[in-house]
């Protein structure tokens, strides 16, 4: 049983008979930990590249989905079907002048994009992409994810404040109000899942959904927790700040919300963080409610590969749903959003938690 990506790398190296000689070399030097560090760095590099490529793909996919709904083609010129469009966008954004407004708070203004971007990557650490494809199976994985996601409102507030622009500030205030009021139903819906599994570890949550009823219907938590799933999905979309809940940047009201004053790579950081967040949240939805990477085991193909494919298929389905939603519905108003959060979603999430608690204690759901 390979527990995480570190062990997987060691396993692969052993398979090719390189691990033993390498270990011997480093042991002879008395620096075994260097090898460990190198392997961890490789892990992180792979994750980083994977996430960045995914983000680039997602920006392309978003355009294509929007175009599909709106009966257009979307990007077509750069590369086959416009696939290289994200690269061109990156080149363009790097080429842009990096403007810092004269009256902005220079340090905070520069710092904010990084504070947004780094948590967006850190979220992926306890997220299982597949069987044993996980950086670290934290025992508090879910708590870690919710905690890390809660950093971004701070950064948004910093960005809005430092820009010294009325629209930015209003966008930031809205974003923070929204984030706070939706993290609560999000966490409450997630706790119901934790009650079912008795563990905060993402791997345990996936494993708990591995079976099947009557050998056909997968034991995903979406079937046991339909209300929880809906609440979690809505809260995640609100937390991501996508239409219909995209106040932080509602362009028709606040020009561009908290990143009105940002340009060039700093703007790109917000953009990348947004899509990384989209991917992460979709992955979390899949892990909590849609069985994570579980799926039929195929012969001759390593389970690591099939499980990764299953995970990606499910995640992209959720992402597609979010994109589809964005093209279909208008945006709600900020007070309506807060009403929905506090007056409807929090009570419903509490009710869901209560019922789940009862049923688990009574032994109906295990």
């Amino acid at each position, binding site marked *: 049983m390979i527990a995480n990506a570190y062990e997987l790398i060691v396993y692969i190296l052993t398979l090719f008979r390189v691990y033993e000689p390498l270990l011997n070399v480093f042991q002879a030097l008395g620096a075994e930990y260097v090898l460990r560090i190198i392997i961890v760095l490789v892990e992180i590099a792979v994750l980083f590249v994977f996430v960045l490529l995914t983000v680039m793909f997602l920006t392309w996919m978003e355009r294509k989905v*929007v175009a599909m*709904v*709106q*009966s*257009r083609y979307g990007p077509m010129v750069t590369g086959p079907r416009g696939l290289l469009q994200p690269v061109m966008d990156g080149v363009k954004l790097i080429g842009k002048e990096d403007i810092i407004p004269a009256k902005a708070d220079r340090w905070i203004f520069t710092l904010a994009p990084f504070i947004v971007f780094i948590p967006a990557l850190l979220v992926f650490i306890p997220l299982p992409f597949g069987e044993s494809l996980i950086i670290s199976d934290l025992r508090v994985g879910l708590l870690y994810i919710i905690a890390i996601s809660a950093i971004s409102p701070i950064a948004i507030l910093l960005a809005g404040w430092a820009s010294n622009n*009325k*629209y930015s500030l*209003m966008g930031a205030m809205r974003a923070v109000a929204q984030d706070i009021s939706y993290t609560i139903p999000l966490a409450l819906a997630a706790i119901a899942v934790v009650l079912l599994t008795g563990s905060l570890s993402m791997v345990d949550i996936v494993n708990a959904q591995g079976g099947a009823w009557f050998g056909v219907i997968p034991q995903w938590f979406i079937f046991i927790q339909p209300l929880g799933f809906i609440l979690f999905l809505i809260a995640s979309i609100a937390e991501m700040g996508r*239409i*219909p809940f*995209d106040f932080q940047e*509602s*362009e*028709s*009201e*606040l*020009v561009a919300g908290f990143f009105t004053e940002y340009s060039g790579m700093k703007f790109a950081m917000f953009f990348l963080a947004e899509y990384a967040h989209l991917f992460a949240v979709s992955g979390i939805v899949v892990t909590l409610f849609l069985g994570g990477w579980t799926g039929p085991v195929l012969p001759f193909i390593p389970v690591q590969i099939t499980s990764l494919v299953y995970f990606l298929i499910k995640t992209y389905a959720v992402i597609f749903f979010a994109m589809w939603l964005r*093209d*279909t*519905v*208008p*945006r*709600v*108003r*900020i*007070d*309506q959003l807060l009403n929905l959060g506090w007056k409807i979603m929090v009570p419903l999430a509490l009710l869901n938690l209560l019922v789940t608690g009862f049923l688990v204690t009574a032994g109906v759901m295990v």
Partner: protein
Amino acid sequence: METDELIINMGPVHPSTHGVLRFKLRMDGEIIKECTPVLGYLHRGTEKLGEMKTYLQFIPYTDRLDYISAMPNNYAFVKAVEELAGIEVPLRAEYIRVITMELNRVVNHLVSIGSLLMDLGAATMIMWGFRERENALQLYEMLCGARMTFNYIKPGGVREDIPEGFIPKLNEFIKDMEKRIEDYEQLINTNEIFMMRMKNIGVISAEDAINYGMTGPTLRGSGVNYDLRKVEPYSIYRDIDFKVCVRRECDSYARYMVRIDEMKECLYILRQVVDTMPEAKIVSNPKYGIAPMTGAPSAVMPYFPRIFTPPAGEVYSRIEAPKGELGFYVVSDGTTKPYRVKIRSPSFCNLTAIPGMVVGLKIPDLIAAFGTIDVVLGDVDR
């Protein structure tokens, strides 16, 4: 809690003020305390130009007023000139004019609803609206070579007869549009979020609306059954069967629904006009004789009065443009140029109602209310 009031300048460069309108907003947090529209960023002195140009030269300038729906502008001015000079218009020309104007009403409402929905955050509708608008613009291109600024309607008729293949294409457009409107309704009408955003937002009572001088769909959304095509029928509207679309809710949703209903009614009118269109002369002028019914532009053009001197006098002529009552007050002193041209534009009068509508609401509501007022800045600042 004691908080400062915030002054926000929304516009003139802002994504949802559609051009160069500027709102000066006094905000208490998210609540609008006072809203002052600041106009004049697109002022081009069109009325003064009217005094400098001859009657025919001024027609292209009317295209630039409400550039979304230029055909009714053409017509409104030409109608004033015709009334001033007492020119008879052949029936076929009137039919063609009504086709172009009703088509333009559809185009206008497509753009209006599309941009409203885009401001509310649903970008799909504007793409769909522009897709259908493109078909209509191609029809215009067939008709007069231009897509937005037509200069097509002339005193005594229209510039050219409709080309071959126009009517089948128009029929196709009507058939297509009927299906598309159903699509729009499915997408938007009963969308819970859309209703939340629109219902009871930007309420203006019928009395206030009349006092502000609001006209068009914005007035009819307040439950006033007033349509110049019925009240003071011009052209061939007397013989056309159509109903005036009225909603009684007085809010943004009602104004939106009036536009959707009006589009359907336009298609109904277009169908009738196409079916009953007579084969006859397209242009007439007492001085220059009757132009042939068909023929290349070069064959028709000489029959237009080039230099044109209506008798001294004054006239106020008004029509139901897509946005409301469009009136031209033209004073002639018996020379080739008007002595005075005053334009009563619907956008300007409708816009005046905005400050009263939005006090106590939030910025997103201002966007929703402003979107349903349907303002084109070229029409506001003349």
